[in-house]
């Protein structure tokens, strides 16, 4: 028993850091079951259906992985902005800007006869550029005018989605002029499928690489240090010779570029065309993903997987037993609320514990000194 206590005392920071997200998930499911019971459904039946729908067969499981991709990339995008003290809620619009960039680039280079890998690369670069521009605008408004990026990015996001809606009903509508979507992209722009007879595409690998690369960028490079310095304190960053305004524009541009890339990957890997239906609000949900992953890209891999499972599981559940699939976003929101609350508790606990450890150390030190003196 005392050994467990000893272990707990030594590693309390890690324990709290890992334990809280789990506690938050459990709490969210508990509240979810209360809501299910109140509306006349059996939580056990619902949750087993979600589990079956997310992991039941090879096809379901790969669908879950495919759903994980946008959450993961946008989650990292949001985390980058957040680390730099910018609250990017407009990732949804940047995602669509990126999807548009991909489709437009494909239209331009369709007939150039490029090899597939080069075609895909250029298309994805197109999505990164437009996504970056969409992220830079709120960054500029914040840096130059002090306008809340939380609001400007949401407003811009709505404008972009409306603009896409206009495009796919107007100049970019498919050649039959029936559906509100673009023509399919050319075959050589499609991301390769990496597992036979499934929809799992190479974007999944790209997403994992992005998470790892950004883990390194944020934690081991000067740029990451600068971003984090701005996140901790603007005045301290300025003192260290970093221009907070410039960094603010840069982090939001970077964040937008990543979210845009997610849009490009969705177009080249899943939908193969652009329409307003390609995202069920990935950009908004990804904020919860980033926070649940503690803004750590490696943690975000886990949280994106959880949210991907919830989304694909709930879709399957809705088909099987008819509970509305909106249950997924309800539980996801609850997870976010509990994570936020428990993190606040956790920070207090950590502070209390570290105070008591420092106190204990100080007592020991004086004791040792006294011994030495004697």
């Amino acid at each position, binding site marked *: 028993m005392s050994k467990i206590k000893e272990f707990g005392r030594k590693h309390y920071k890690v324990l709290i850091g890992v334990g809280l997200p789990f506690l938050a998930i459990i709490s969210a499911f508990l509240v979810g079951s209360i*809501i299910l019971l109140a*509306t006349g459904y059996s939580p056990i039946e619902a949750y087993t259906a979600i589990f079956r729908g997310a992991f039941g067969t090879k096809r379901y499981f790969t669908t879950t992985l495919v759903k994980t991709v946008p959450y993961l990339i946008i989650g990292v995008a949001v985390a980058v902005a957040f680390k730099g003290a910018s*609250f990017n*809620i407009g990732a949804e619009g940047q995602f669509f800007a990126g999807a548009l960039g991909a489709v437009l680039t494909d239209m331009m280079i369709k007939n150039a006869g490029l090899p597939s890998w080069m075609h895909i690369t250029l298309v994805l670069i197109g999505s990164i550029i437009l996504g970056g521009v969409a992220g830079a605008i709120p960054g500029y*408004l914040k840096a130059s*005018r*002090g*306008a*809340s990026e*939380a*609001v*400007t990015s*949401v*407003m*811009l996001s*709505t*404008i972009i989605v*409306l*603009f896409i*809606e*206009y495009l796919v*009903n*107007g100049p970019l509508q498919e050649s039959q002029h029936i559906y509100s979507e673009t023509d399919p992209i050319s075959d050589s722009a499609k991301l390769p499928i990496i597992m036979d007879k499934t929809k799992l595409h190479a974007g999944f690998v790209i997403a994992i690489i992005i998470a790892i690369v950004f883990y390194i960028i944020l934690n081991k490079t000067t740029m990451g240090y600068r971003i984090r310095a701005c996140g901790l304190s603007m005045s301290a960053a300025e003192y260290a010779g970093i221009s907070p305004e410039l960094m603010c524009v840069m982090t939001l541009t970077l964040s937008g570029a990543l979210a845009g890339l997610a849009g490009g990957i969705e177009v080249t890997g899943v939908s193969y065309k652009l329409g307003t239906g390609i995202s069920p*609000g990935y950009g*908004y*949900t990804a*904020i*919860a993903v980033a*926070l649940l992953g503690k803004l750590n890209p490696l943690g975000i891999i886990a949280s994106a997987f959880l949210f991907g499972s919830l989304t694909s599981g709930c879709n399957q559940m809705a088909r099987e037993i008819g509970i*509305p699939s*909106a*249950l*997924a*976003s*309800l*539980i*996801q*929101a*609850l997870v*976010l*609320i509990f994570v*936020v*609350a428990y*993190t*606040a*508790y956790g920070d207090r606990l950590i502070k209390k514990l570290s105070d008591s450890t420092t106190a204990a150390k100080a007592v020991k030190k004086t004791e040792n000194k006294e011994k030495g003196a004697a």
Partner: protein
Amino acid sequence: MLFGIPIDSLLQSTVRLSCPLILAAIGGIYSDKAGVSSIELEALVLMGAFAGFSGAYFSGSLAVGVLAAMLSGVLLTLIYGYLVIVLGCRSAVVGMALVMFSSGCTRFLNRIIFGISDNGLIKVEAFKPIAIPLLSKIPYLGTILFNQNLLGYIAFILVFATAFFYKKVPLGLEIKAVGENPAAADTVGIPVVKYRFISTLVSGALASLSGAYLSLASSNVFVEGMSSEKGYAAFSIIILGKYSPIGALLGCLMFGFADAFQLNLQAHGVNVPNQILQMLPYIFTLVVLFFSGKGNAPEGHNKFFVKGMSR
């Protein structure tokens, strides 16, 4: 006539479209004045719209609907206030979480209670315009201002009542002190956390009336996502209006005008795609934020306060 639109009908719809914004913005001002960011407004509007509609639908009484909306707002701000004021979580994060929660919750419940396909077919008896005797007979002004529904009148009364409250009433002045300088207010014995919490709850009750206006007055149905960023617009308008109720009123009227203008253009079949017209109010908000920047927020705005922190 403006682009072929009769001015008086344009102004009538301007006032009608401004009302939900005014209710949301005035609600938001109550928490902003006490130093608590009102970034959760969007959640209050959406939840208010659903709660108001369901309340009115099941009871058959609009009054119950309005009370249900206010209750939903109080419950949401209870969570918001606890997390932001007591625990010190970042308001933007909690606000976002609540927006997600309301969006998921209203979609889930709407489909369970009213079914998916019935969207827009299940209706309630909506608030009717009440013409004020004599005043409504004034040419132009009468039809524009004095032919509102009950919630519309409440919106305008709230603007002036709120302005009076923060200018003349001692309690209002004390709350303003809490927003400007919580540490100083604490030193002279004003209960900072308590005032902040109560202000936020009031804000929840009032802002959710905005949702009730959407589902019970300007329409008689609930549509998923019907708040359509009105909460965020109100949040920006508060900043534009420099945190004063009268300023917010003017901002809301301007925003309402942009909205009325685009709707009227659409109705008159102007040769501009609908989606481009629909962008107008949002572009307007961005331009507004560009020129107003931070505005002059209360000094202690969005700053976490713990009793005894200053000592």
